[in-house]
């Protein structure tokens, strides 16, 4: 555990001694902030419209949670598609490029130390990115009265989806010494997962539910609504485990080739 943390801390620190950490952080805030602003504007517009119509029944199910927070969490996950590869691509590819993998692989370490150390570094950075976005829901709480529970469950969901992304990005980083290739591979995987339910209407009924279940983004829905459901957690955690397992295989292949 100590060795794992040593590697995790080193890689987390590496994000902030180079511009990469700050760049990713500010780009993420810029994009989510922009989208948040859009949601607010839309909310105000619709409210005004309904008021003019004078139709109170239209306001059923119309509140800050459904109109702003739920789409806000979805937006974050969408932005992850572009952002996560940017900070996971360096995790191991850079070691290979700089030839420091020769150090890591010849020190008395187990594969699991390297794998989990890198994973925790990615997770911590993800955590920092998410914490920095808390300012948006806080604004809602100050100026409105959203239901606070779904904010927490939404963040849990976003974090779990992010963790699954990090595990995939880490795997990609283990497969190549070229950071750009690592980023493209993870980007394509995320995009596929995003688009996986696009063919649902045409699919066979049994296959349909599989596709729906596989979509990482549908897994977000219940979290954003304030529901912490076991199947979703199981899905996301097993997704992480699968990503890490592939990463482990990638290291082993490197070791035994």
């Amino acid at each position: 555990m100590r060795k794992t943390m040593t590697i995790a801390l080193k890689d987390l620190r590496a994000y902030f001694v180079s511009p990469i950490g700050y760049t990713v952080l500010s780009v993420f805030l810029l994009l989510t902030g922009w989208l948040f602003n859009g949601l607010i504007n839309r909310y105000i517009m619709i409210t005004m419209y309904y008021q003019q119509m004078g139709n109170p029944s239209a306001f059923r199910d119309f509140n800050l949670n459904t109109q702003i927070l739920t789409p806000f969490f979805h937006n974050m996950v969408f932005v992850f598609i572009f952002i996560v590869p940017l900070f996971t691509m360096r995790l191991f590819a850079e070691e290979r490029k700089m030839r420091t993998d020769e150090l890591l692989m010849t020190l008395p370490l187990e594969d699991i130390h390297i794998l989990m150390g890198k994973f925790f570094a990615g997770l911590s950075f993800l955590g920092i990115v998410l914490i920095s976005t808390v300012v948006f829901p806080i604004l809602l709480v100050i100026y409105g009265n959203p239901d606070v529970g779904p904010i927490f469950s939404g963040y849990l969901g976003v974090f779990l989806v992010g963790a699954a992304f990090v595990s995939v990005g880490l795997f990609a980083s283990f497969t190549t010494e070229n950071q750009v290739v690592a980023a493209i591979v993870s980007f394509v995987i995320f995009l596929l997962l995003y688009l996986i339910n696009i063919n649902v209407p045409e699919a066979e009924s049994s296959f349909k539910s599989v596709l729906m279940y596989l979509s990482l983004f549908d897994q977000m829905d219940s979290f954003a609504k304030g529901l912490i459901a076991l199947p979703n957690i199981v899905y996301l955690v097993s997704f992480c485990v699968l990503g890490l397992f592939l990463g482990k295989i990638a290291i082993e292949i490197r070791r035994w080739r």
Partner: protein
Amino acid sequence: MLEVSGLTKRYGDILAVDDIGFQLEKGEVAAFLGPNGAGKTTTLRIVTGYLPPTAGAVLIGGVDLRREPTKAKRMVGYLPEIPPLYPEMRVEGYLRFVGKLKGLRKQELEKAIEEAIDRCRLKDVRKRFVYALSKGYRQRLGLAQAILGNPGLLILDEPTAGLDPAQIVDMRSFILELKGSHTILLSTHILSEAAQICNRVLIIHKGKLVGDGTLEQFATGRSLEETYMSLVAYS
């Protein structure tokens, strides 16, 4: 201390290392000689556990590298051809990082760091960032990393390559200091260097071990240079 037998490494059709075997006793300093591309670096990488061999076994202090890699690696300090440094770290921070990964703790760790800084004469740059170090200091830091925690076996891949003459002398005297207490396997192109600091010479050519003996054995009658040329003469 180090026992290598039947070591073979194949990259596709290319046989990089071909059935190499040798033994190093404790305290021996061996020079690994050979032309570029002979398989020196590959062999050293296998011995340190960075690359897996296609066939053959490596025993370090009696421990099988393949079966118990972590235990075997604990006894090895390795300076690769390119010192494996993190530019964004400070000299001290880097040594602390490596020390922790070697499993050293608190006082033991601080002591080992001080010792390594002292022995590799890194005192003046200990607070500096690695990216700001000159080539000579980088090499020394790489060496400091290798000797950290006093492993019994040191594997040094061209420790004097790219250094200026004064630094080469420095590095040699440093290796001579370690002679006796550590087993050292180093690769080099410079024959006179091997003659000066080593008591054992291994000559590798086209992946095969073509010469193995003590310096005295090689030096009888002919100079090391002549022996080397006759063994690796380009045919």
